[in-house]
């Protein structure tokens, strides 16, 4: 009996000695923290909710009745196809490392099919918690949802007038050639924009500006919808739009508050800034509608909410409450003007304002990050108004690089796919509606 007790005592000592070594060491060995992991798993599901049903119904309600199913289909298919692409090689390209001259620009295939990543491996990526990590696979899953929603946002520009076969090819090519590189530049350990010092907490440039520019390219390449000639196409189901916007707001808490990869004070701060900026954006958009259009509209309130969410995305983990409010107020002014004045003046058919809201809103958000980043939130994030005038230059570099790469490569992709399968449905098909011509389905029955 005594020998047994000594043995147990030694065992306990050995195991707890390991613990003591961890807490007294200067650089803690990373381990998997259950609280952070639980939150990130939930946040991952939140971000999935943003694409489907959130974005699906937000866009679905904005198009005409005869095209609603094509929008829903695009969102479901993007979720499925990009998720597979991500775990096959997308994650490795975006967040992996390669060697040689290309390392700052693109990862390699080291982690293709999650090769070499065990289920209990802690994530190499962290923000505020250097030791308390989440499993690497959970981090990859979280990022997968970002990779999914980014191409789905572009659908706002080509809605109602892109063939399904073309859309499929474009999605796969765009994720691989545009999203994965830009994500690598801004978020990976080797990324050149990250090394430069550009700040983007949850994807203002990687997700929103990127897809917004691609949306502009799509609108320019595809041309106007036929029968658009100066007539507005009213949304066929504004309740859907509000439902979608509300689900986006809900899910965005995972998008922003989850980007700290931890369930800590920074997550709470990102949650706060997200909520407040969005609220400010809603109020400002409604005010602008009231002043310039005579009445406050529910469509304006919903659009304002989305604009606010977009703008606060890069800033959410860097700005204070005050910075968040200003970010939200300004984005509504800028995007309202883009959508109501500039688009009409230039005449491009950005059907659902993907460029006007996501592209421009994301660019403003990146600038706001550079202006308002407060060291009291993250010591590494110091903006212009806290004495670091250079930060705005790094933000401009981020915006500029994203703009150029996204514009040029998206253009090339669209042209190549046009040669391969053709982009546009025929005039008759566009008139009948993509639901019937691409999917043989009708969303709403008229009788029974």
């Amino acid at each position: 009996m005594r020998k047994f007790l000594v043995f147990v005592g030694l065992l306990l000592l050995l195991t707890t000695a390991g613990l003591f070594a961890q807490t007294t060491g200067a650089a803690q060995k990373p381990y998997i923290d259950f609280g952070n992991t639980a939150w990130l798993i939930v946040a991952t599901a939140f971000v999935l909710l943003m694409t489907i049903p959130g974005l699906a119904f937000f866009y679905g309600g904005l198009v005409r009745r005869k095209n609603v199913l094509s929008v829903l289909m695009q969102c479901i298919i993007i979720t499925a196809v990009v998720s597979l692409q991500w775990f096959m090689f997308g994650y490795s390209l975006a967040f992996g490392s390669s060697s040689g001259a290309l390392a700052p620009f693109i990862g390699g295939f080291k982690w293709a099919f999650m090769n070499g990543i065990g289920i209990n491996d802690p994530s190499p990526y962290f923000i505020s918690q250097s030791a308390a990590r989440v499993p690497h696979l959970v981090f990859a899953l979280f990022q997968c949802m970002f990779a999914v929603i980014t191409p789905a946002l572009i659908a706002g520009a080509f809605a109602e007038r892109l063939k399904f076969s073309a859309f499929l090819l474009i999605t796969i090519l765009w994720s691989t050639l545009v999203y994965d590189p830009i994500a690598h530049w801004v978020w990976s350990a080797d990324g050149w924009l990250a090394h430069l010092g550009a700040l983007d907490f949850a994807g203002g440039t990687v997700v929103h500006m990127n897809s917004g520019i691609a949306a502009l390219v799509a609108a320019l390449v595809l041309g106007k919808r036929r029968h658009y000639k100066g007539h507005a196409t009213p949304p066929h189901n504004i309740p859907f739009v509000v439902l979608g916007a509300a689900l986006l707001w809900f899910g965005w808490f995972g998008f922003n508050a989850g980007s700290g990869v931890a369930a800590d004070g920074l997550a709470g701060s990102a949650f706060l800034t997200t909520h407040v900026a969005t609220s400010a954006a809603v109020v400002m958009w409604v005010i602008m509608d009231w002043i310039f259009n005579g009445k406050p509209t529910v469509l304006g309130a919903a659009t304002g909410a989305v604009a606010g969410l977009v703008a606060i995305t890069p800033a959410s983990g860097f700005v204070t409450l005050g910075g968040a409010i200003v970010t939200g107020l300004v984005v509504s002014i800028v995007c309202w003007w883009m959508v109501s004045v500039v688009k009409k003046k230039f005449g491009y058919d950005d059907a659902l304002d993907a460029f006007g809201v996501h592209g421009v809103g994301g660019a403003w958000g990146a600038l706001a990050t550079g202006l308002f980043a407060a060291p009291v939130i993250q010591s590494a994030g110091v903006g212009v108004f806290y004495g670091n005038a250079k930060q705005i230059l790094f933000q401009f570099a981020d915006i500029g690089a994203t703009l150029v790469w996204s514009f040029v490569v998206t253009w090339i992709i669209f042209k190549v796919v046009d040669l391969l399968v053709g982009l546009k449905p025929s005039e008759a098909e566009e008139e009948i509606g993509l639901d019937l011509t691409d999917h043989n389905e009708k969303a709403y029955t008229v009788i029974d």
Partner: protein
Amino acid sequence: MKYVIAIIQPQRLHEVQDELYKADVNLITVSEVLGHGRQKGTTEVYRGYKEAQNLLRKIKIEIAVNDNFVEATIKAIQKGAKSGQTGDGKIFVLNLEDCVRIRTEERGAVAIG
């Protein structure tokens, strides 16, 4: 007095309206209907079950006009609705017995306005 009923393709409604306003015909009733002429229907698929749908969405326009406006109305509708393909639609002209303006209780050609 005549009653003009036109069945047109839904996507031509804007054009037809523009043409009617240009011809100084400013009164109109529009409803959504299902139907077909000689054009083919569509096929819909629900979880593998194929269903032929031959009732297509159309727009019905109804306008009461005085005799001197009938030709202008017909021409305006035709100009706006014609696309050259089967399924463009038809225009019917019926005799109208009487017309009453509810607010002023006027009757006949005056009431059509």
